Every structure is written in C-alpha cells, then in structure tokens.
C-alpha cells in the first residue's frame, strides 16, 4: 500500500470544477513534483489534500489511514499527519521565530515544553537559523522566513510535506538557500509533494514528476521521461516553453 493514495479526487470553487478525478500514489520517502501551466490546479490539489478546500468526492489515504474531510474534528486528524508551506510568507507576525515553530506542538498538541523546544532548536539549526530564535518575521529576509515556515511545518512531525511554490516570491539570490533545505529533507527521507517552477531543481530532486493541465493529470513519469521524452503533446509544449526561459 502506498504511503499516500489519492483516488478519484474532485474539487470545485463554487460552480467551477477545478480538479477532475485525480489519482496519484506516492511511496514513503518519495519526492513527487507537480508541474503544469498556471491555473492547472496544482495549488488546489495541495489545498484540498490539507482540507483548506473541501473535496467534492474521492478518497485520500495517508499512512494506512483514510482521511475524513467532512467535519472540523476529523479534519484535525487529517492535518495531524501532513503539513503545508505556501508561496506567500505567512509566519505569525506577532510571534518570534521560536514562537512560530513551537506554537502548534505546544498549544494544539499540548506536547511537553522541554521536548518541543529541543526539537524546535534542532529544526531551526537544520534550516540555518539557530541564531535567530528571538527574531520576529519582519526582521528576516524572505528566504529566512520561508526556512522558518519549513521548520514550523516540520515541528508537528508530519508524514507528508506539501510545498506550494515556496520560492516563487523570493528574490533570485535567496532561492538557493531554500532549495538546499528541501534537498536536505529529501535526503533524510521526507515524503514530499512539491509544486515548483524551478525546473532544474524539480529534475534533480524528484523521483517522479506529474504534469497537470486544466485540473487533470496529463502524464506521470520520471524526470527523464517528462523532460526528455514526454509522451503527451501538452507536456512537450509546456516543458519546451519553461525550459527555453
């Protein structure tokens, strides 16, 4: 049984049907990237998995547990096992770096303070911000903020990490430091579903790449297949367009 199994997932915004019958399996420790033109539903897929948007139908299983998106309390369970980092910086502005990373384990999970803080320290060390514990988000660069956001997501020990274009809002010189963190996580065996426009990075870090268009999965393959020998015209057009930039 795959670590994450998405089976026939549909989602809409009001009357606009945005995801059509998405089926995707992700093995433990696998890194799968979603690519595709803007508006193809990549963000919606991630947001639906964490329940920010409600799926209209379909089944999602993570670590042998079927997720139930129907009620607030069952949603909480679903969120126990996954974490998401968004494109826009969204750290809590009124909390320090360490406050941002510890709030969920302390206040939501009610884990032991000593353990939580030790874990948070080691996570912040890992993202290279061990010296910024007491800083506030507005005192950090965009790259640093995204690294804190990654640490905050990891603080709940998720079984799956979702990353939605987390380098798109960054100045070019700050992209590298964030991608390095993701590379490290991939090496450590974190299961990840990544949306990214950094094609070089996608190619290097992904075990498989999923091409999406108009709310559907068009093609799934290894990076070599998708970038060097795509089967579908839409994939070929898209990769040709983004790689020529």
């Amino acid at each position, binding site marked *: 049984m795959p670590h994450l199994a998405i089976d026939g997932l549909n989602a809409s915004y009001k009357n606009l049907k945005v995801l059509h019958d998405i089926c995707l399996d992700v093995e433990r420790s696998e890194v799968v990237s979603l690519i595709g033109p803007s508006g193809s539903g990549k963000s919606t897929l991630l947001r639906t998995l*964490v329940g*920010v948007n409600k799926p209209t139908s379909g089944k999602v299983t993570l670590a042998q547990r079927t997720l139930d998106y129907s009620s607030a309390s069952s949603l*909480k369970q679903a969120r126990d096992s996954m974490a998401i980092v968004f494109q826009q910086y969204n750290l*809590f502005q009124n909390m320090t770096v360490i406050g941002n990373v510890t709030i969920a384990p302390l206040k*939501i999970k009610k884990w032991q303070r000593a353990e939580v803080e030790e874990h948070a320290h080691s996570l912040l060390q890992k993202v290279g911000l061990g010296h910024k514990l007491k800083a506030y988000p507005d005192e950090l660069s965009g790259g640093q903020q995204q690294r804190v*956001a990654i640490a905050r997501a990891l603080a709940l020990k998720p079984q799956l990490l979702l990353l939605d274009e987390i380098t798109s809002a960054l100045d070019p010189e700050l992209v590298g430091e964030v991608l390095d963190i993701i590379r490290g996580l991939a090496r450590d065996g974190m299961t990840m579903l990544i949306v990214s426009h950094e094609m070089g990075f996608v190619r290097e870090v992904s075990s498989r790449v999923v091409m999406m268009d108009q709310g559907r999965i068009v093609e799934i393959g290894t990076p070599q297949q998708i970038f060097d020998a795509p089967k579908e015209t839409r994939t070929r057009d898209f990769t040709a367009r983004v790689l020529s930039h």
Partner: protein
Amino acid sequence: MAYTFQFGQAFIHLPYLLGGALLSLEIAFIAFWGGTVLGLFGAYTLVYGSRLLRSIVQGYVTFFTNTPAVVQIFFLFYALPEAGIMLSSFTAVTLGLVLNSAAYLADIQRAGFLSVRQTELDAAETLGMSRLQMLRYVIVPHIARTIYPPLSSFFIWLVLGSSIGALYGVEELTGRALNIATSNLRTIEIFLVVGGIYIVMTLAASLSLGLVGRHVFRVRGGLLR
C-alpha cells in the same frame, strides 16, 4: 511699561490646578475606554455586520467625525433638557466625548480587523488551530498590535480635548485655570503654568504608552526610537 511676571500668583494655586488635571485625566480615561468598547462593536459591525447594520454604524461614524465635538456636547447639554433629560455638565461633556470617540475608534479598530492577513489564517488553520485558538493566538494579538499606535495618539488627543469641558463649566484643568485668571488677572502666568502641566501629562502618557507598546506590542516610533 514692561510686564512683570508674578509666578508666585500662579504657583500658590498649584494644588487646585493639579486637582483639575486629575479630572482632565479622568474625563480622557472614561471617554477613551467608553469609546473603545463602543467602537469595538462598531468596528465588528462595519466588517462583519449585515448591510442594514453596517449603514447605520457608517452613518453614525460619518455624523460624529464630521461635526465638531463642541456642537455635539452643546446638543446634549442644551437640547436634551428640552426633552426632559437633564445632564450635569460633567456628564454631558464626558458622554459627548465618549460618543465622539466611539466614532473615531470604530474606524481605527475596523482597520485592525481588516489588517489580519488571510495567509496567516490559512497557516493557522492548516496547523490545526480551532477558531478560538486562531482568535486568541493570531487575530487578537495582530489587531492589538496594529491599532496600538493610533489608539495611543488618540488617548493623548483626548487628554487635551477634555479641555472642551471648560466651555460648559466643568472644573477640569482649563476650567480651573479660567476660574483663577478671572479672579487674580494673572492670566499669562496661570496659562504658562497650565500649559506646562498639559505638557507633563502628555509626555508622561506618551512615554508610558510608548514603553508598553514597545515591550508588549513591539511597536516602534513615537518618543522612543
């Protein structure tokens, strides 16, 4: 003929004047908290209320921020008795300032509600926070921090604005100064001293508000940089 200052004539009245200063602070304090609480309901309505309630509150805000406070209090003090409602001058002035402040403070607090960023709420939600936890850990601290500086300035404005009471015979600082000046005619000395007292009050208020802001809400600026 050169004017000879006789500050002694002012200083012997210092205890009397300081008593007035205390009353000024009291008026400012009541107007501020009364206005803040009323304004909070107003702000909540302006952001989340139904269309009808919104336009009522908006009408209130427009009316009170576009007419002079003097006129509003004048109405409470002279027009209400015609309807059988007698207010003491202290009550009329304080109530007038509360109603007036509520309008300004509704606007300020509304900006606070609007400043909460959806991205932070999304993050809170996906971390698993409940509505109540979001309110407590994300929304309220954010609003408090955003509106703290304009709230502080407004309080200081009210300390000075309470002098409007003198027009209606309230014996706050300015009222008492007028009382002394009309009896001993040392108007210049009296008002220099009174000016000094106002400066001390507003400086003390901005310093302490600034310290609280800096340490509790991480607000920079003001007198403390």
